[in-house]
């Protein structure tokens, strides 16, 4: 990527940062759900730990770790998809697409916004988990960075699919930006092992990077071990899904240019 390409990517990121600078409700919204989730699940685990008479319960850590890490995937996907939707809502896409910005640069900018939104959304929840419930996700060690990265990339892959659907079906597909990843929660084995799922569902779960991340997280919290196999599987699946969804996105973008959908995508 040359300097001009970096500037174009920065142009889109700057546009969104300027929007957040002028709209505190948007900034608050970034933190609202992760913090709320942490508070609710934190009290649930405190209650369960009390019932078990074991305040340092591994189960409590597994639940809180699941909440925090799943928020990374959710915020990553929403950070990408909603930044794209902001362009539609502001009826600005026409200007963006007649500039020299390449589709891959738009994707890079949306990924950049996704990282920023994840950090702003998840860091306060992590801090809260530590302050209120003495749960430090970083106690898992450096492997947590791998878990973060794998879920971040999975969020991008899902977001590319959502954005492709928006290009195909217009803003009518916008509800998917809010809901699609919630639909993957049961298969992602966020709060329970993959082995709990019925046999026929397990291959579905293992085709998702998230299931491998959470299997790895449980091993790290339970035994203090790093399950490299799960981490590598997560990254391999990330690469596969990202390539596939990137292809679908680019195909839909070109199809939108043929159908004239870029002229009235807000409708």
């Amino acid at each position: 990527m040359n300097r001009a390409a970096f500037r174009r990517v920065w142009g889109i990121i700057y546009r969104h940062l300027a929007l957040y600078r002028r709209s505190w409700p948007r900034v608050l919204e970034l933190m609202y759900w992760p913090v709320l989730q942490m508070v609710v699940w934190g009290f649930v685990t405190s209650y369960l730990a009390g019932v078990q008479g074991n305040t340092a319960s591994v189960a409590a850590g597994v639940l809180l770790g699941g909440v925090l890490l799943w928020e990374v995937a959710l915020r990553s996907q929403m950070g990408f998809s909603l930044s794209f939707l902001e362009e539609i809502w502001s009826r600005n896409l026409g200007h963006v697409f007649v500039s020299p910005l390449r589709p891959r640069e738009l994707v890079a900018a949306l990924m950049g916004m996704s990282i920023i939104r994840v950090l702003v959304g998840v860091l306060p929840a992590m801090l809260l988990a530590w302050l209120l419930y003495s749960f430090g996700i970083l106690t898992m060690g450096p492997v947590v960075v791998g878990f973060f990265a794998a879920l971040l990339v999975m969020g991008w892959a899902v977001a590319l699919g959502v954005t492709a659907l928006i290009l195909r079906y217009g803003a009518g597909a916008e509800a998917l930006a809010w809901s699609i990843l919630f639909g993957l929660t049961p298969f992602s084995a966020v709060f329970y092992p993959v082995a709990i799922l019925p046999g026929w569902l397990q291959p579905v779960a293992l085709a998702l990077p998230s299931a491998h991340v959470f299997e790895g997280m449980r091993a790290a919290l339970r035994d203090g071990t790093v399950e490299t196999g799960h981490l590598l599987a997560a990254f391999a699946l990330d690469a596969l899904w990202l390539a596939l969804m990137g292809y679908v996105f680019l195909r839909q973008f070109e199809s939108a240019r043929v159908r004239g959908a870029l002229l009235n995508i807000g409708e």
Partner: protein
Amino acid sequence: METPAILAEALSKRYAPDAPPAVDALSFSMPRGATWGLLGGNGAGKTTTIAMLLGLLVPSGGRISVLGHDMARDRFSALARMNFSSPYIALPARLSVAENLRVYAHLYDVPEAERRIGELAAQLQLTGLLDRPAGELSAGQKTRVALAKSLVNRPELLLLDEPTASLDPDTGDWVRSWLERYRTETGCSILLASHNMAEVERLCGHVLMLKQGRVVDSGSPAELLGKYGREDLEQVFLDIARGRQRVPA
């Protein structure tokens, strides 16, 4: 020989295989430094033509070259050297005027962006508005901001879609005068689509009259007036739109 600003060869667009063509076998060559007008009623193919010239829409057939770049293979090189303004595409309303212009300065890799923004603000009387959110501006102010956005990269080709739509006569006249001066000073090529016949007559050296996606007539405003024996382009437009025979001079 200098390549034309726009070269369209047998350009066509069908939105569906069984739909009538929105643009049908459109061919023209617009020289550098010229100001041309696209005239036609609703559904004549003006917006579709402009969208194809901008690379927003892929033609069903034919070929477009903009500033020597084939739009099918090398559209981003052309897009960096051209720009576009339309009152129907908004700029982010919550961003200030300066922030909006800064975004596009980045997208077009404009050197010394702040200086360029200051220049445009001074020229288009936007200096006092730079910190105002774009959504809070009047229609006339928004038009001037949209013009500033379209000039931020010093385009060699400017595509304007109804540049004075919804403006009061005074503001519309100010914009037209400004465009005339800008063209003279920079040699920028301008293609504008408009329903305002007086505007086209004043700004354009050549006019393409479109009907059902085809060029049904073309020439300078004076040539068209002579050909149809009319006093103004509006009457010529009505003759063509209603399929009336031209009146011999």
